């Protein structure tokens, strides 16, 4: 340990005591896209005791431009991001205990994973999921670090349940997902700048140096050369439905979601049946329809102008359409 983490222990706010704390903590990273993979790499290198990685997606060619940890081989083999991340992280530091889950983040799927979590890092790509997390982590009293980015811009903010304003206090209404990476693009340094802030805040929490935590919200634009902080103390609302005195947790729904959804800006629809699927049986049935690609985690095939990807947990991605109707028609033709 002494040699491997020596440069981190020389850093006084961490020191040997801090390193021991880091080695015994458990961080959950929600999302293994750009923010998730880079935060995971930082924390694995820093020696965090345990990482839980959650992602519903698999590695695609257009991810490689900004998503650390992944290679062309992962694209070729269509490896789920959480699985590919775990594999690479163990090559970097096999002392870290890593749990990787290929699943959709819902309260039902997340609650069992929150048991001994010290911090959650937000690496999701939409505000629906973030507002659900905001409720969930307030309820379970787990600090988390919001981060988001698009283009050359990004933002970060550290949320301590019952102490700081929550994400809902800052947002009068859930933002429309106007600007996403899939609509206006992104450059990798914007990712890293957010990650630099998120990992630093995570390290402060892990070594229990609460006095050093950032209390403002950071916004930046690297291409246009600005960096702005906003003091948010005033934003805490007494009657906030998430962090107020009588919370109703409006974005926390306990139901199993079986609804289908358009993945914004990706020309893709996700269909959820809520039933587990035996991919090998499905392959036996579909092999006469089109050439099948199958690995331990998913089955994919091209059909007409679409690409379908089936996961164990009953989710199917239909790439090539933004129409839920159309996607369902295709889905039922093949797997119905």
């Amino acid at each position, binding site marked *: 340990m002494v040699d491997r983490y020596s440069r981190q222990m020389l850093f006084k706010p961490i020191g040997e005591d801090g390193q021991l704390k880091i080695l015994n903590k458990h961080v959950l990273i929600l*999302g293994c*896209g*750009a*923010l*998730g993979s880079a935060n995971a790499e930082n924390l694995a290198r820093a020696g965090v005791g345990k990482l839980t990685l959650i992602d519903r997606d698999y590695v695609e060619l257009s991810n490689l431009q900004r998503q650390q940890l992944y290679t062309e081989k992962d694209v070729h083999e269509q490896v789920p991001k959480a699985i590919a991340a775990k594999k690479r992280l163990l090559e970097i530091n096999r002392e870290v205990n890593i749990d990787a889950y290929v699943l959709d983040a819902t309260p039902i799927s997340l609650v069992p994973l929150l048991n001994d979590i010290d911090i959650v890092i*937000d*690496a*999701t*790509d*939409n*505000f629906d999921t973030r507002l659900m997390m905001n409720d969930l982590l307030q309820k379970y009293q787990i600090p988390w670090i919001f*981060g*988001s*980015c*698009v*283009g050359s*811009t*990004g*933002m970060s903010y550290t949320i301590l349940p019952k102490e700081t*304003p929550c994400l809902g206090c*800052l*947002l*009068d*209404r*859930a*933002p*429309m*997902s*106007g*600007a*996403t*990476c899939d609509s*206006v693009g*992104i450059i990798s340094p914007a990712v890293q700048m957010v990650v630099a802030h998120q990992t630093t805040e995570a390290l402060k929490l892990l070594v229990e140096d609460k006095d050093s935590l950032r209390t*403002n*919200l950071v*916004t930046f*634009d690297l291409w*246009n050369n*600005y960096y*702005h*902080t*906003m*003091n*948010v*103390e*005033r*934003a805490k609302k007494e009657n906030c439905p998430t962090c107020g005195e009588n919370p109703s947790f409006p974005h926390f729904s306990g139901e199993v979601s079986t609804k289908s959804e358009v993945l914004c800006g990706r020309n893709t629809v996700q269909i959820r049946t809520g039933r587990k699927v035996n991919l090998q049986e499905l392959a036996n049935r579909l092999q006469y329809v089109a050439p099948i690609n199958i690995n331990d985690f998913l089955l994919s095939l091209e059909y007409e102008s679409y690409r379908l990807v089936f996961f164990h947990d009953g989710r199917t991605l239909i790439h090539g359409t933004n129409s839920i109707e159309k996607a369902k028609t295709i889905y039922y033709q093949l797997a119905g």
Partner: protein
Amino acid sequence: MIKILLFADLQEKVGKPELELKLEQITVEELKSELQKIYPLINLESVMTAVNEEYAMADDAIKSGDTVAFIPPVSGG
């Protein structure tokens, strides 16, 4: 004079990163609807507002000399 900083896609839609408006006093909400009139393309509905680097509510007053920043939450990750 009120100085206005525009972030993320607002900057692009307005075509510059900063504006100055000759105003003595105005609330956050009023300023938003003034700007909405001048720049119909921008959407200030879910934007966060900072006045002199502090979070501001809809009915907070802005005075001449203040710097207002409009910060649209971005969602990617």
